[in-house]
C-alpha cells in the first residue's frame, strides 16, 4: 500500500534545491556538501520527489519557537 506522505498534515514541505541556491547555502555556512545532514534515497519523500543521490532537499518545517525553520538534507545511498 502506497501512502502519499505529502498529504499528511504532519509532513513538512520538501523541495529539490537549485544549483545556485545550494552554492549560496554552502558558502553561507562555509561548508562542503558532505557536511550537510543526510537523507536516504529510499526515504518516501525522496522517492516521491524523484530526487537523485547528490541532490539537496530544502525542508520547510514549522517550529513552535521560530515559526518556520528551514532544514537542508543531502540525498545519499
Amino acid at each position: 500500500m502506497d501512502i502519499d506522505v505529502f498529504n499528511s498534515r504532519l509532513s513538512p514541505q520538501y523541495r529539490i534545491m537549485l544549483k545556485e541556491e545550494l552554492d549560496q547555502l554552502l558558502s553561507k555556512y562555509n561548508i562542503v556538501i558532505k557536511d550537510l545532514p543526510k537523507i536516504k534515497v529510499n526515504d518516501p519523500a525522496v522517492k516521491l520527489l524523484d530526487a537523485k543521490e547528490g541532490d539537496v532537499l530544502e525542508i520547510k518545517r514549522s517550529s513552535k519557537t521560530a515559526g518556520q525553520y528551514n532544514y537542508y538534507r543531502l540525498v545519499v545511498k
Partner: protein
Amino acid sequence: MKLDSNFVFSKIDALEFGIMSPKMIQKMSAVAITSSELYDIDGFPVDGGLSDLRMGVIDPGLTCKTCGNTIRDCPGHFGHLELARPVFNVKTVPYVYNLINSTCNSCGRILISDEHLKKLSEDIISAEINEGQKKKIKLIKALIKHAKNVTVCPFCRAKQRKVKLEKPYTFIDGDQKLTPIDVLNRLEKIKDSDLQFFGLDPDYSRPEWMMVSILAVPPITIRPSITLENGQRSEDDLTHKLTDIVRTNQRLAENIRSGAPEIIIDELWDLLQYHITTFISNGSAQVPVARQKSNKKLKSLEDRIKGKEGRFRGSALAKRVNYSARSVISPDSFLRFDEVGVPIKIAKEVTYPEYVTDLNIDRLKATIKNFNSYPGANYVITPDNIKRKITEMTVDNIIDELKPGYIVERHIKDGDIILFNRQPSLHRLSIMGHRVKVLPYKTLGINPASTLPYNADFDGDEMNIHVLQNEEALAEADMIINIKNNIVSPRHGLPLIGAAQDYVSGCALLTSKETEFEKENAEFLLSNIGIVTDLKKKKYTGRELFSMILPEDLNFESQSSTYKITKDDDSIVRIKNGKLISGVIDAATIGRESGSLLQFLFVRYGSEVTAKFIDQANKLGLMTIFNLGMSVNIRDFDIPKAAYTEIEKAVKEGESSVAELLKDYDDIAEAKILSIANRIRIKVRNIIDAYIDKKNNNVEAMITTGAKGSITNLIPTIGLVGQQMLRDVRISNGFSDRLTSHFKKGDNGLIARGFIVSNYRKGLNPVEYFLHAASSREGLMDNVIRTPISGYMQRRLSSALNDLKVADDLSVRLGSAIVQFKYGEDGLDVSASDKGDLKL
C-alpha cells in the same frame, strides 16, 4: 600536534596474537627453576629458586644478573619450569575440546572430506576479507559443529567416538579418561594445513602449545616481595602459587623416577593440574578456590587483567588527577552561595603555582617562610624547571635566591577560584567554579542555596574540588563556569539557585503586611547582610527593609505564590523604583526553579547583582526566621469535627456506589471503582482545603508561600490515605476469595480491597498498615530497577551529543558537519532570554 614523518621509524601494519610454544618459553628463559626454596639460611636468593637474581632485581642498589641493569632499568626476565608431566591450561580447554572432537582420533585429520574443505577454505578467506572477523568466526563455529557429529573419518575410515568434557578439565573417551599426555598426542597429530579451519595459524599457535608442558615463570619484577617492618619477607600471591607448583612438580618427578604406584602419581599429577589452574585463574567454576592462610583469595594472573580493577579498566583506561580533594559536605548558610568552605588541612595540601613578580615577591616570601603552617607554600620551581620542596633545611636558601621568574606552589587562600563537583556529573552544572573560603572544619562547606544543580544533600554526600593550575584555566573558571554565571538554567530559563524552605518562609514572613521592626531590631537585621546604618524612623516595615537590597531603579510586578492561593490583592508583588510597595516575597519570586524576580534580575542586571541579591535575600529571610521564630504544632494539623463527618460521608457514599456497581457488574467494574476511589480523594482534598485554619498555621503558611509541602501531602496526613495499589490494580488475592482473613469471602468492596480510611495522624490499623507497606514496597522496587536503567539511558544520550557545539554562526555542528542550521531552531540562548524572548 602533527606527528613529524621524520620521527616515524616503523608503522604497525597488523598484530598477530598467538600461543607461546614450549621451545619459545625455553629460549626466552633466563633460569631453569629447580628448587622450591626461595632463600638460603643466610637470606640470599637460592640459585634456581623462584627469587633467583637472574629473573630481575627488586632491591634498589643491586644489579640484575641477566641484563646488568639496576631496579629502574631492568625489565625483569622470565624463567621456566619443566613439568614432569604436561597439564591442561584451563583457559584453552574449550578450544582443545573442539579440536579433539573435530579431528580424527587415529590420523588426526579434520573430519570433513577433501572436496568440502576446498570450498570451505575459499569461503573462510573471502568472508574474512569481505565481511570481517565476525563472519569468519561464525563460519568456523558452524564447521566445528558439523565436524563434531561425523562418525567415520573421511580420510582413514576410522570410527569416531565422541569425547566428553567433564568440567573443568577431564576428557572422557568412551569409558576411559584421557590424560593430558593422550590429549597432547592427539593434538600433535593435527596437520598444519587443517588448522586454518579452526582459525589458527600454525606458525604462531600450534594446538599442542595449548597444553602446559613447560611453564613460563614470570619475572620477580611483576611479583615483588616486600620487607615488613620486622624484617620478615612477605611474598606475592603469584610467588606463593609458584612455590606450590614447583614443590608438587618435584614430588611428581621423584615418584615417577622411583617407580611409585600409578595411583600416587595420578594424585600428584592432579594436584599439579590444580595448582597451575589456580595460578592462571583462581575462581573458575568447579575448581575449589585457592586461599591464603588468612582465608584471603589468592590473586591469579587472570585477576590482574580482568574486571573493574583489572589492568584495562583499572589501569590503562583509568584517569587520575593531582591538586584535587574530596570530603563530606556540610551546609553552611553563612557562606555566600558562590563560596565553598575548604578545610585548612586541604588548603595546605593543594596548591596554586604562582609566578613570582616584583609585585608579589614579598607576599610569596612570607608564604615560603610560613611553610609549616597556613598560609604557606610547599614547593618552589626554579626558572630551569627544578622543583624544590620547602623544608626546615631549605627555607632560608630558597628565600634568598627567590626572584621574578620563579614559581611558588602556595597554599590556596580565600578568594581563589576552584572547581567544585559532585558525581554523577550528569550535566554541565555538576562542575562549577566557586571561590575558596578556608575554614577550620574537616568537611567541605556549601551554602544550601547552591545544592540544586549538584543534586546534593547532607546525608553523607561527598564532593570534589579541583585547584586550577594556570591563569587561562582560572580565567575560564571565573568567566564561564563560575556558579554566579549559571544561576539561570540553560534548560528552562529559570533560576536553579535561589531561596528554598526556611529562606522562603523567612522572606515571606519579613514581607507580609503586618511585619514591623523596632529601629534596633531593624538595624541588627540589616547588619547581617552587610548594611550598617543609623536608621532614622522609629519603626520599619519588613517591606521597607527588603527594599534596601533591591536595585534602586528596579520596576517589577509579578504574582506571588501566596496570591495564587489567597487571591489577596496585597500579595501581588509590586516593585516601583526599587521599593517593594506591596506583595509577599515567596517561592514564586525568589524560589529555585520558579523565582521570576531572580530571572528578571539576571537578564536585566546580570550575574553580580543577582548573586548579591540572592545571598542578601536568603540571609534576610534566615535572620528574620531566627528573630521571629517559626515552628509547627500538632494543632497546625487540626481540622474540625465537621470536616471529618464530611470525609466520612464521602467515604460512605463511595462505598455504597461501589456496592451498587458490584451488584450490577460483578468484576468488570474495576476501572469505575478506581475512579470512585479517586473521587473520594479529591473530595477529601477539597474538604481539607476548605476547613483547615489558614491563619496562625505555619504548615499552611509553608504551603502557600511554596517553602515546602503541598495540600497533596496533607491528604494522607490528616484526611485519609486512600486506595493502595499493586501492579496498577487494587490489592487482591492474599487468601482465597479475599485479601486477608479480616474480610468476608467474596467481598469486593472498597475497604476489603485496600482502601485505607485512616490517616497518618490518627494511625493505621494493622491490616491497613500491612497493605500500605505492600504498596510502598512496590514503589521502592520500581525505583531500584528504574534508577540504573534511566541512568544508563542518560549516559548514552549525553555520550552521543558529547561533541556537538554551537558555532559562531549559531549553527550546531559535529566537527565541520552541520546538525542544526540554527541552535534550537530559533538560535536563542534560553538562559539569556526572558521566557524565550530576547526583546528586552
